[in-house]
Structures are given as C-alpha cells and as structure tokens.
C-alpha cells in the first residue's frame, strides 16, 4: 500500500516537471510577440499598442534570455511557488485553486451521476440479458456514445434551458448551474460504463460460484450482495480509471460549451494570452489530477480485491 502511494508520488513529481517544462518550451516556440499578447490580455484590444507592450516587457523582464526565465521557474517550483499570472498579476496558485475547484466539482458530480445511472441500468440489463431492456439500453448507449459530448449538451440545453426555462444556459452562479454540464458529461460516461457494468455483472451471474450460491439456497438479492457486487465491481472500477482520460477531455469541451470557469477553460485562455505561468500551472494541475485519480482507482481496487492485498 505504502509502496503504491510512493510510486504515484514519484510519478506526480515527474509529471509536474515534464508538463511544466514542455509547456514552457512550446510557448516559446509559438509565433507572435509575447509582450504584445500579454498587453492585449491585460488592457484589451482598444488599448494594446507599442507603449503598453514595452511597459509589459520592462515590468516582467521579458528580454532576459529564455534559460534564465526557465531556471527561475524551476527554482520557484522547488519552493512550491508557481509564480504570478502575467495578465492578472495574481498568484497562479490562487487562480488554479479557484479553477480546479470548479473542475473537480464538475468532474465529481458527473462521475457520481454516471455511476447512479450506469450501475442500476447495467445490473438490470444483465439480469435479463438479451431481453428488451438489455437491447434498448444497448441502442441508447450506442446512440449517446456516437455523439460528440457537446451535441448531448446542446440537446439538453434546448430542452431544459430554452424550451422549459428551468435551468440556466451557461456560467456558474450557484448549484443550479451545475446540473446541465454534469448531466451531459454523466450521460456520455454512463453510455459506456453501463455496458461495462452489464458485461461484468452478466459474467458474474453466469459464473460457477454465483450459481453455487443460488443452488445452496441464497435469494437473488443475497447472492448479489455477498458474491456478486464485489466481483462485478473490480472490472468496472478499473474501467473508470481508463475512462478518466476521456472525462478530462470532455471536461475541457463541456467547460467551453457551458462557460464553466474550470481549469480547461482557464488553460485555453492562458494560451491565447501567452500567460506562461498560468499555462504551466493549469497543465500541471490537469496532469496531477490524472495521477491523483489513478491513485484513487488503485487504492479502490486494492480495497475491493483481497487477492491484491495478500499478494503484497
């Protein structure tokens, strides 16, 4: 267990360094004058001119050689200082915490809803494998999965926000704003994970140990609780880990569609304004999020599967 956490921590350190360095190098390779971009981000398109750009360059010391700026960033990073945003002047850690909070809220709510949809649908379909519910859920899954995630979002927007005016279209100003983006993301996720749950549960239902449990006289509910759930959960949890990649990808798109103030959104705008410390911070936050979620999946599998514990 400890070894598992240590390994992930090392991985986190490597991700931090490599993502930060890569974003630094990529940003230096992009065309366009950095001081002009930052001045446009700060003062707006009506006020960006040579004078503003030169003031920005002098203030931020942008005419220093790249390696000096890089070494300074690396030194600051070792002291857990991510620097200040070039555009707003606020500490990057403060801004990332604000954005990451929103992203985690969205991703967490989406995963929870996805699980609430996928688990009952999957188990029900498995219990009557080949029946009408199983086939219908396959059809709906395939339809949902075939759509880009923003099409699902647009459909929900049309119905709940524009026709019924029950929910807000975009932005974030309270819990009601969470419903549509989280549901969109959850539907896209549940489309696949409900099928994984179904297959995993069907396999358990067909297994010898499950049949034995039934034969020895346990009711279906008892057999599912004692012998089914844990065995069926393992592949599902592992799959959730794999699905995280697409969740984070989906988060970026959903944040854009619903003007959700999260990390993906912040990253896109930081690229536009050449705000290098913000880009490094946002990319590192997304990278670390990956590592942390993978760690959680590892730990969950570790707890669910007694065989893994005894192997250590």
């Amino acid at each position, binding site marked *: 267990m400890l070894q598992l956490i240590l390994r992930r921590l090392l991985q986190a350190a490597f991700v931090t360094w490599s993502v930060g360095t890569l974003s630094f190098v990529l940003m230096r390779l992009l065309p366009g004058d950095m001081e002009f971009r930052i001045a446009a981000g700060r003062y707006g398109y009506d006020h960006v001119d040579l004078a503003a750009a030169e003031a920005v360059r002098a203030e931020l010391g942008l005419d220093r050689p790249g390696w000096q700026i890089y070494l300074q960033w690396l030194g600051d990073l070792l002291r857990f200082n991510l620097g200040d945003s070039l555009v707003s002047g606020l500490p990057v850690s403060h801004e990332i915490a604000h954005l990451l909070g929103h992203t985690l809220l969205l991703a967490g709510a989406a995963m929870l809803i996805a699980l609430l949809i996928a688990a009952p649908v999957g188990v029900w379909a498995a219990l009557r494998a080949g029946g009408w519910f199983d086939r219908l859920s396959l059809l709906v899954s395939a339809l949902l999965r075939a759509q880009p995630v923003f099409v699902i979002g647009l459909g929900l927007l049309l119905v709940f926000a524009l026709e019924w005016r029950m929910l807000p279209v975009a*932005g974030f100003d309270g819990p009601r704003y969470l419903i549509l983006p989280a549901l969109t993301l959850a539907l896209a996720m549940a489309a696949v994970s409900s099928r994984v749950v179904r297959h995993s549960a069907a396999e358990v239902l067909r297994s010898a140990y499950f049949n034995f449990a039934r034969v020895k006289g346990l009711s279906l509910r008892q057999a599912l609780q004692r012998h089914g759930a844990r065995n069926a959960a393992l592949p599902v949890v592992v799959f959730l880990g794999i699905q995280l990649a697409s969740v984070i990808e989906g988060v970026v798109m959903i944040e854009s569609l619903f003007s959700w103030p999260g990390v993906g959104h912040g990253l896109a705008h930081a690229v536009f304004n050449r705000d290098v410390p913000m880009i490094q911070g946002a990319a590192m936050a997304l990278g670390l999020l990956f590592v942390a979620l993978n760690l959680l999946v590892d730990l969950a599998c570790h707890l669910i599967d007694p065989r893994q514990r005894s192997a250590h």
Partner: protein
Amino acid sequence: MRFLLLLLLATMLAACSPNQDPHQLSISGPFEFTSQDPSRDGYLYTRLQVAETLLEVDAQGQLLPGLATAWSQSDGGRVWRFTLREGVRFHDAAPLNAAAVVQALQVAQGKPGVLAAVPVETFEAESEHSLVVRLSRPYNPLGAVLAHYTTAILSPASYDAEGQISRLQGTGPYQVERFDPPHRLGVVRFADYWGTPATIERAVYLTGHRAESRALQVMAGQTDIVYTLDPASLDLLRRRDNVRVHSHTIPRTIQLKLNLDDPLLAEHDTRLALSLAIDRSGLANGVLRVPGGEANQLVPPSLGDWHLNDLPAAQRDLSRARALLAGQGWQAGADGLLQRNGAPFRLRLMTYADRPELFQLATAIQAQWRELGVDLQVSVVNSSDIPAGHHNGTLQVALIARNYGNIADPLGLLLADYGDGGNGDWGAMGWHNSELPALLVAQQGERDAARYHARAQRVAQILVAELPLIPVLYYTQQTAVSARVRGFSFDPYERNYRIAEMSFSPCCN
C-alpha cells in the same frame, strides 16, 4: 414522486422563470476581467457603477459634473481647477477630499492609459474640496480624460504601497460584493450613496465568451441584459416575446488599416478603387443585419466637429474602380484576377476575433474585392498582432474597429492614430503627412470654438482626400434586454450601464 411532478409543473407554469432572481439583475458581456485595477479593467467598475470619475459625459459627448461639481481653466488653459462634491463617501466610509483625488490620479498617471498622454506637471490639493491640475502646455481633452474609466477615483485605502489595488473602494451606488475573476463580479447596493440610491438590490456581471451562448442566456431568462450580440442571433432574439433588442449607434468605426509602404497600396487611385469596390449597404443589411451605418469617412456623425456633414454617401461603383485600377496598369487575367507584370493583385488581411462581426465582414469584403479581381486572403489573429505588425512592417491590410469615443473628445485618439508623422499603431501606416499632425497639435490648446471646428473639419477633409484608411461601417451596439427590466437606457460612450436607474416589473414576464 407525484408531489415532485406537481411541483415541477407548478414551477413551469409560474409567471416567473425559475432562472430569474427577483432581487438580482444579471448582466452578461464578452469581457473577461482579471483585476480591480482601473488601468486594466476599469470599464467594468464604471459600468457597474462601483467607481466614478471627476466628470461625466452625456449622450452628445458634453461634459457633466461628476465627483467634481464645477471646473474652470486659467493661465491660457495651463491651470485647471476642480471643485469637489461635498458629502461624498467611499465604500469604506472614508470621505472624498482633494488629497484622495490627488493620490488616485497620481497612481493612474503612472500606468498605461489615457492620462499618461496628458502633459501634467502637478496635481495639487488646494483645499479640502478644491483640486488644481497644472499642465506644461494647454491640453483641451483633459476634461474628457478625467471622465475616462482609467482615472476613476478610489479611496486611499484601495492602494497598497506600490500603487497596486488591494481592494477597490469607489464612490458609486453599488459596491463590490464578490470578486471572482475572470467570470463573475457581484455588486450590492451602497446605502450611503451621495445621489439617488439604486432600486435593484444586487447586480452580477457574468463573462460569456460565446456570443451565441449569451443570446441563449437571455432567451432562457437566465440573464437580464446581454451586451454585444452577434448578428446571427438577432433574428432569433427579435422573435422572442420575453426579450427586447435595442440598437444604438456608438462612436466606433469599422475600417481597413492599410500599409502605404506596400507598393500595392501606395497609390491613392488603388486605395480609392478598393474603397469603391466595397458594397457597404450589403454589409450593413446582409452581415450586420442593421440597415444604415455605411461610413463615408472615419469619424462618425455623432462627433460633430470632426465629421463632414455634406460629404456624399459612399456608393459602390465597380466600373469606376476597374477603370482606376486599369489606369495603374492592372489587367484581368484568364481567372478574372488582376495582374501587372505577371504578378497577381494579392493582399493579406488580418482581423481579430474579439468582436464577433469582424471576421464575417472580412470574408464578405473578400468576396466583394474578388469581383474587382483582387485576391484577398483573410487570417484571424490576436488583436495585438495589429500594433505588432504595424511596427515590424508585416501588416498589409487589417480590418479593425476603432473607438473614437474612448474618451469623449476624439482628439486624444486621433493624436494616437495620426500624431506620429501621420501614423499610429491603430491609425495610418507608411503615410507621410505633416499637415494633419500639426493641426491636431494646434487643437490641443485651441480655446476658440469656431477655429476648433474649422481645424477639425480640415482634418476630416484630409482623411477623406488622401484615404490612408478605408472607412467601412459605423458600429451599432446590439443589446438584448429581458422584458422584466424597466428603465433600460444605453450610454453610447459605454462608460456606464446605468443599472441604478433600472427596476424590475412587478410581474416578471
């Protein structure tokens, strides 16, 4: 379950959309804000009526009293004296006095902004409520500069030791309640406001990056006022009964910035031909979907002194344009494109995505110039690539929207655009004219209204005759307002959203 369904139905049938908060006005615009510093995002704080300036501006661009009740000039326009309003308190309860104003203006002077261009020698507190500004030479636009958001007056406690804003404390009818950059700014009514207190208790500004999303927000009843709509959403919005669309001309001109150092654009006849080939009415009706607004000169009619009233309207004249280009040696090739000495007439236009209509207009101009035989390549860049391209010479043609109402006196902007030997970052490029900059400099100290008008008219004539930039359209600001909002009005100088004057209808829909 049945109860939940009934509840749902009841909410849907209720007169008010559940998306509307009865005590909060919700505003959406495209501008992202990142700070509380007036030099950066000050427009948002004057628009939401958190911060106020010494002077105000009416719809005609005339100066009105603001935090200063009276002002006068002496010593040939080199000394300006302002009398401050009494009984004004900042949001942190500190009183407004001359010392606080001096501090605010000195901080503003040290940052990029319109005050940096003013030849100020000193700001002095003469007494508790009297302020003196001494200039090294007369500068007429000072009054308009002191009405600009970058010169908003904040309480001394708003600044830290380095002049950075720690917490913005203004004097307006609303004060900042929640500051969540870059997406949400919440303000709440300020009880001790010196003027008439606001009716609506709270207001919130939410950044909406996509113009389409903003249009949907007002349709869903989620947002009460949406500024800067995209042309494509207008028809959709006009069909909704819970939304009103307001159109207002603002002193902003969409124009083509040209590099006159480029051999293709150096000749006046070529520039005139390109201007004649533009179907401005087609752009206004078909792209912006607002008839009118065809620009025959750079400065719009609302800025009277600088606008030529008798100039004929701009008309498309393709045959004359062809003749002018033929006179320059351009001949149509087999593909319909013009050629000279075997080289095609090919131009590269850059524009930026910050204003939603610019890219659509650029592609329409591309098609219109194609009829003339000019191959125009359009690229969308960051707005900063235009001043950068001006200085490194890579800019050929740029479609820009220039705000002559940035300060209420267009002289400041014209000096920035044409002061440098006729050129400027967002003005002419590669133009060589000494008369126009001299006229502008002379205007700075002109006290006689007739002479000021005559010189301003001469400036307009030179710009029409020499055509260093091609005027295209005067801008119309489109605003969608929810039917529940009463007392909406629009400030053409975009300094103030005037939310303190608004209220909600008793029945929201």
